[in-house]
């Protein structure tokens, strides 16, 4: 028998968990990965943060550099701008360095120091090259200004000397004197400045030519007379003046020897002598015209004087020497004959019981003349003479005549005062709209302009190198007024009546309000103020009359196309007296033609008698 037995059937190695060495490591790996990811993220974040901070810092430095650079360039520029009015060029460089040190400290404080007082050294170092560059640029400009200022002083000294020499030459009374003055200038001043790098050699060359021409003109003038003396004569005004007709005659005479200041003979064909002859002939013609006009004025004044005496005869006062005085006068034969007849008529009328002015015709004459005077129809010097003639002929009662003449003169003054006031206010409006400083308006207001000095004061203010645009605005206003008056438009319509189609203020303002730039106006104000303050110092206001040369320069500067207003310039070797007398003639023609200037600026209507003299003669001698 075989007993059944259990047999194991698990086989070999029945315990198999399937566990490997890395079983369950995954979770720990996740933790390790987390740490790694964290590090990567932090590193990435830190790098990005640093990059952004760097960019922000770079931008901050760029901003600081730009701002500071602007400050520095402006500081250097402002300093140089301020040098334009200064003459102490020796101080320019030290002043610039001082300014720059202060500016550097300011930039460091304002731009590179925070509120806690920490100085940003790194940003400053980044900017510093630009700072030094701006300093050097400014320094170069300062050196340029030093050269300019030094040159300007040279020019001033040269000009002073040049003007003095010109005057000496023009007032020389002998050939030797002219030659001496010329040689002194040529060997002294000219030689001193010749070749000087700081002095404009073009100016020097021009000055040389002009002075040589003046010297030669004076030489020819002196040699045109006998014994080296300029020919002279007494003109109708009783003033001794150069006799240009003789000068022209002798200068054109080939037998009269003439030499220039360098000893060269000047024949009649020589260009310099030919010019001199032409100029002398022109002056001779002008002198002749002036004398003729002056004789007419003298005659009128003499007639007026005799007519006034006749008026007294009509009042019953005999004038025993009347006819004798008439015959002694310079009046023409016809005029003398007329006056003598009037005198006899007056004597005869004394015996009449009924005076002419008491007759119906006389009353009628009085009424008409009075109406004409009061209406302003009779308001010029020539028309005033008519009233005097009526008195002299016994047509108007002498006392009545005196009253009428007084009325005429008063109306002349009143009318002009009214116009001056309108003109002055118009100028103020134009300047104000153009942006001028109110102080300047006050200054003009305070000058107490009147008919006699309005032109001289304004011309002086505007002729002192003011801004050309403002100058043109005022000048155009003046021109428009003159044109309007020529066409019969009243000044009140042009300047006061805003409803009038001829009102011009709005148009002027419209044209110049936008055009005139602020800086130009300021420039003009500064110069005008300087001029006014200078004159206040010397207390010269009120003593002025028109400066003909200034007026001529003014006309030239605005380049007027109205040639009738071109004041004839003073001749090279013409004395002041001669020139003013010639200008009187010119001015009288201007007044007669009633063109170019407003009526209150014309000589024949500026209040009272002897008005020609008031326009052109300065108070005292030049």
């Amino acid at each position, binding site marked *: 028998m075989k007993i059944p037995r259990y047999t194991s059937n698990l086989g070999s190695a029945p315990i198999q968990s399937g566990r490997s060495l890395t079983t369950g490591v995954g979770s720990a*790996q996740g933790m390790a990965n987390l*740490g790694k990811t964290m590090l990567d993220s932090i590193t990435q974040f830190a790098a990005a943060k*640093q990059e952004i901070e760097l960019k922000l810092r770079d931008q901050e430095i760029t901003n600081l550099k730009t701002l500071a650079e602007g400050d520095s360039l402006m500081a250097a520029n402002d300093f140089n701008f301020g040098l334009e009015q200064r003459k102490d060029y020796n101080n320019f460089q030290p002043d610039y360095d001082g300014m720059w040190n202060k500016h550097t400290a300011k930039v460091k404080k304002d731009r590179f120091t925070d509120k806690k007082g920490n100085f940003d050294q790194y940003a400053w170092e980044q900017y510093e090259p630009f700072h030094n560059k701006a300093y050097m640029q400014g320094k170069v400009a300062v050196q340029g200004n030093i050269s300019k200022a030094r040159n300007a002083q040279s020019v001033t000294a040269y000009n002073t000397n040049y003007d003095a020499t010109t005057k000496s030459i023009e007032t020389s009374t002998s050939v030797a004197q002219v030659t001496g003055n010329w040689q002194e200038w040529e060997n002294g001043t000219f030689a001193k400045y010749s070749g000087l790098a700081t002095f404009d050699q073009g100016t020097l060359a021009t000055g040389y030519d002009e002075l040589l021409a003046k010297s030669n003109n004076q030489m020819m003038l002196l040699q045109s007379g006998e014994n080296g003396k300029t020919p002279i004569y007494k003109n109708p005004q009783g003033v001794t003046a150069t006799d240009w007709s003789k000068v022209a005659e002798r200068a054109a005479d080939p037998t009269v020897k003439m030499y220039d200041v360098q000893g060269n003979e000047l024949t009649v064909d020589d260009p310099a002598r030919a010019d001199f002859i032409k100029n002398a002939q022109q002056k001779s013609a002008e002198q002749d015209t002036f004398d003729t006009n002056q004789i007419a004025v003298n005659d009128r004044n003499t007639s007026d004087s005799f007519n006034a005496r006749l008026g007294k005869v009509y009042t019953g006062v005999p004038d025993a020497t009347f006819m004798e005085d008439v015959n002694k006068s310079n009046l023409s034969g016809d005029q003398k004959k007329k006056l003598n007849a009037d005198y006899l008529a007056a004597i005869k009328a004394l015996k009449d019981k009924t005076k002419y002015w008491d007759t119906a015709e006389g009353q009628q004459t009085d009424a008409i003349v009075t109406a004409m005077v009061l209406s302003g129809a009779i308001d010029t010097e020539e028309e005033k003479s008519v009233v005097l003639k009526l008195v002299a002929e016994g047509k108007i009662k002498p006392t009545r005549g005196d009253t009428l003449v007084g009325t005429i003169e008063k109306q002349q003054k009143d009318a002009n005062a009214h116009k001056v006031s309108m003109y002055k206010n118009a100028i103020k409006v134009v300047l104000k709209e153009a942006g001028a400083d109110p102080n300047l308006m006050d200054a003009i207001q305070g000058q107490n302009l009147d008919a006699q000095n309005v032109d001289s004061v304004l011309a002086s203010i505007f002729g002192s190198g003011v801004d050309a645009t403002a100058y043109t605005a005022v000048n155009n206003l003046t021109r428009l007024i003159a044109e309007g008056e020529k066409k019969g438009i009243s000044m009140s319509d042009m300047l006061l009546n805003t409803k009038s189609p001829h009102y011009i203020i709005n148009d002027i303002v419209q044209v110049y309000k936008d055009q005139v730039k602020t800086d130009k106006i300021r420039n003009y104000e500064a110069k005008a103020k300087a001029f006014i303050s200078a004159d206040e110092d010397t207390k010269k206001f009120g003593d002025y009359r028109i400066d003909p040369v200034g007026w001529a320069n003014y006309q030239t500067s605005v380049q007027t196309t109205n040639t009738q207003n071109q004041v004839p310039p003073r001749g090279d070797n013409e004395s002041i007296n001669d020139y003013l007398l010639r200008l009187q003639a010119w001015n009288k023609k201007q007044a007669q033609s009633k063109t170019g200037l407003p009526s209150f600026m014309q000589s024949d209507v500026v209040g009272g008698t002897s008005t020609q003299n008031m326009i052109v003669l300065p108070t005292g001698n030049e």
Partner: protein
Amino acid sequence: MAWWVIPAMVASTAVTVMGIQQQKKNLRANDAWRKYENELNFNYEKQKRLTEEKKRLSLARATSGASGAQMFTGSSLLVAQADIEEFETDMWYLEKGLWTKTQAQDAELAGEIANANFAIGQSLFSTAASVGTYQQNQKLLNSKGVVT
């Protein structure tokens, strides 16, 4: 410099290192479990074979007794000796197999631990590099006047 950046880098590295340390613990635990399992299987196999050998010897004795032959004398003794020697040889190899497996597993564990240690080193080095780069950049920024 943001004060927390470097501590955060260090903390993140610490997380990594802790993870790897945990890996090492897992590796060692797995190793222990596998050794324990191998020993169980070895002992089971050993016990099982001993039991079978015991049964065979019993059967052999019973068979011999029934046949009337003299037990473990003469040729039967030689047969019995040969069987015992073979059995002992098997047992010897069985034991050597366990030893060999254990040795291989130790080598495998050492490799994994070394790998984990390298990973820790790599992580530390990476952190040092990041911190160094950050600090260097910060120095550059500070030299340019960046104050953070």
